[in-house]
């Protein structure tokens, strides 16, 4: 706000060059002063006086600019004298002279901006991928061993926690899973009908819906929603517990974090996801049936009888059969990434993102493997 005016004047006094700094040498005027100081033609091998008689206000930046100029002048063999430094400003000059570093801060180019760094990063990422896979498998083994122990001592299973997880991941997800499956049913019915109508085969929309939703989309959509909803929550919850040293506290209290935290989540999701899948199948078919009725004029009873004719129970069971596999992937990845959180808040965010991306990736890869294997088995 201060209409700060800072001036810089050079005059010749006999053979002494006098640089007079006056006015307000502050942050606000620094850019302009820096420009004029750089534009100054610095002499060599001469006596120079920097006169500060007109200086009204100065802050550390102003003092730094003046001291830098004196330094530059000295480097060229000039004899430099600071004149008329007001006593009030002396401590500031002293502090800046002794504490300030002369070299501007360098901003080193991040290593990955170079070609070698780029190649190195590819290598690093690849190796990281292997070690992740290795560690994830190790974690799988750990959880399997813990689960095995629980089979012999079922009393140690935390039933309340498991049911709480089922409520979180299942009951509380009913609205979103139902809504999205319903919409997917509508979309498939509409797009399918549009294509099939050209061949006069609108009625096969029902087959498309039945096979598409029951075998693939119902379970896949549910798994993806749950990965985003519950998988991320697992990572964030366990990760936050790591940041707060709660996991360490569990260990010192003689509690096994895998038993306390992972098993209820894993078991909860294993039981919940198949049920959610059946529900998603129903909602998807409902959406499709309503669309078939509205657009194609296929009444609901006819839709149902065509559905009975076109699909078998196997189609339905294949979808449901895949659900526990997806559930295991989501729970394992979610918990594993939670335990990977280091003791900083930002790593919770990083691992949570990783957890969602990884579990969705693995779910889709597993689904593709199922497709190939089942087609080879001609199921």
């Amino acid at each position, binding site marked *: *706000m201060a209409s700060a005016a800072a001036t810089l004047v050079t005059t010749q006094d006999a053979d002494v060059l006098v640089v007079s700094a006056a006015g307000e040498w*502050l*942050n*606000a005027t*620094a*850019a302009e002063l*820096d*420009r004029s100081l750089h534009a100054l033609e610095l002499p060599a091998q001469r006596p120079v006086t920097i006169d500060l008689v007109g200086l009204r206000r100065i*802050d*550390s*930046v102003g003092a*730094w600019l003046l001291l*830098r100029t004196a330094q530059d002048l000295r480097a060229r063999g000039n004899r430099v004298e600071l004149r008329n430094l007001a006593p009030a400003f002396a*401590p*500031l000059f*002293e*502090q*800046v002279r002794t*504490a*300030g*570093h*002369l*070299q*501007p*801060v*360098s*901003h*080193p180019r991040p290593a990955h901006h170079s070609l070698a760094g780029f190649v190195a990063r590819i290598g690093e990422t690849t190796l990281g991928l292997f070690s992740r896979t290795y560690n994830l498998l190790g974690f799988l083994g750990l959880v399997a061993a813990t689960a095995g122990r629980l089979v012999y001592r079922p009393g140690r299973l935390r039933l309340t926690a498991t049911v709480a997880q089922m409520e979180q991941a299942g009951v509380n997800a009913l609205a979103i899973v139902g809504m999205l499956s319903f919409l997917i049913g509508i979309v498939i019915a509409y797009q399918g009908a549009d294509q099939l109508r050209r061949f006069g085969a609108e009625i096969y929309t029902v087959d498309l819906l039945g096979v598409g939703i029951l075998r693939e989309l119902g379970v896949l959509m549910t798994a993806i929603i749950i990965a985003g909803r519950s998988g991320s929550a697992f990572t964030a919850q366990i990760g936050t517990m790591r940041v707060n040293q709660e996991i360490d506290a569990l260990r010192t209290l003689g509690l096994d974090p895998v038993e306390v935290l992972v098993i209820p989540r894993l078991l909860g999701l294993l039981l919940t996801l198949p049920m959610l899948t059946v529900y998603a199948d129903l909602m998807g078919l409902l959406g499709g049936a309503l669309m078939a009725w509205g657009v194609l004029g296929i009444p609901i009873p006819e839709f149902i009888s065509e559905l009975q004719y076109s699909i078998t129970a196997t189609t339905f069971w294949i979808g449901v059969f895949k659900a526990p596999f997806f559930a295991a992937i989501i729970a394992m990845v979610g918990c594993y990434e939670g335990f990977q959180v280091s003791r*900083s808040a*930002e790593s919770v965010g990083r691992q949570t993102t990783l957890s969602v991306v990884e579990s969705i990736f693995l779910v889709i890869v597993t689904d593709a493997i199922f497709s190939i294997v089942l087609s080879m088995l001609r199921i």
Partner: protein
Amino acid sequence: MDSHRQPIVRVRGLVNRFGNETVHDGLNLDVFAGEVLGVVGGSGSGKSVLLNTIVGLNRPNQGEVEVFGTDILGASESELRTVERRWGVLFQDGALFSSLTVAQNIEVPLKEFYDMPPRLMDEIAALKIGLAGLPEDAGPKFPAQLSGGMRKRAGLGRALALDPEILFLDEPTAGLDPIAAGEFDNLVRDLKSSLGLTVFMVTHDLDSLFAICDRVAVLVDKKIRIGTLEELLRDDHPWIRAYFHGPRGRSAQQADASHPAEAASAIAGTTPG
């Protein structure tokens, strides 16, 4: 120094309530130019809430807050910016932006408020890094690469970026070992005298109080009792007595009496454990 008795910070009738819990009840406070004010109080007495209220991060239920004569609660955006340019805040753990290097952290306010060539900003960053007592090679480092004490210094460097007139410090020596805490006290005192700073310091550290504070504000009974250390040492409020005349208060007093300048480091050297 021309506005000697004109307070830089003026708080009147401050009331802060969280749910049913009243933290401040009609609190008044003045901070004058050129002084180092220490703010102490028990846990939960609202020291940080007071700081947050003054710098506009917390809206009180009632009361007036003025900084440099500007009403913080009713100020327009541009009035606030003018005030923000004149204060520096150091949060407890430095609150550095973790994705930026120390130098870039210091350059953030410079970029925001001034149009400066990059080289000048790098020079200013180096200057502030030096003023905050950090070594030259700290500039390109990321906060995660620094120790807790260095992070506080880097935070101080950023708080000093715009050459503020008043510095708000929230427990600057908490979590530091006694030697580092003593050095930080000395640093604040040096900067205060050379840059002409006013300092508002929330602290738990009795050594800091004795070493650098001109006046001390004690948060008791939801209000403030303020005075010089001598005055507070004579105060007979039970909490204040317990605070200053407990074993820790006494040892800090003794250290201060024997070596005023190196009080903190003297304690660091002699107190076992």
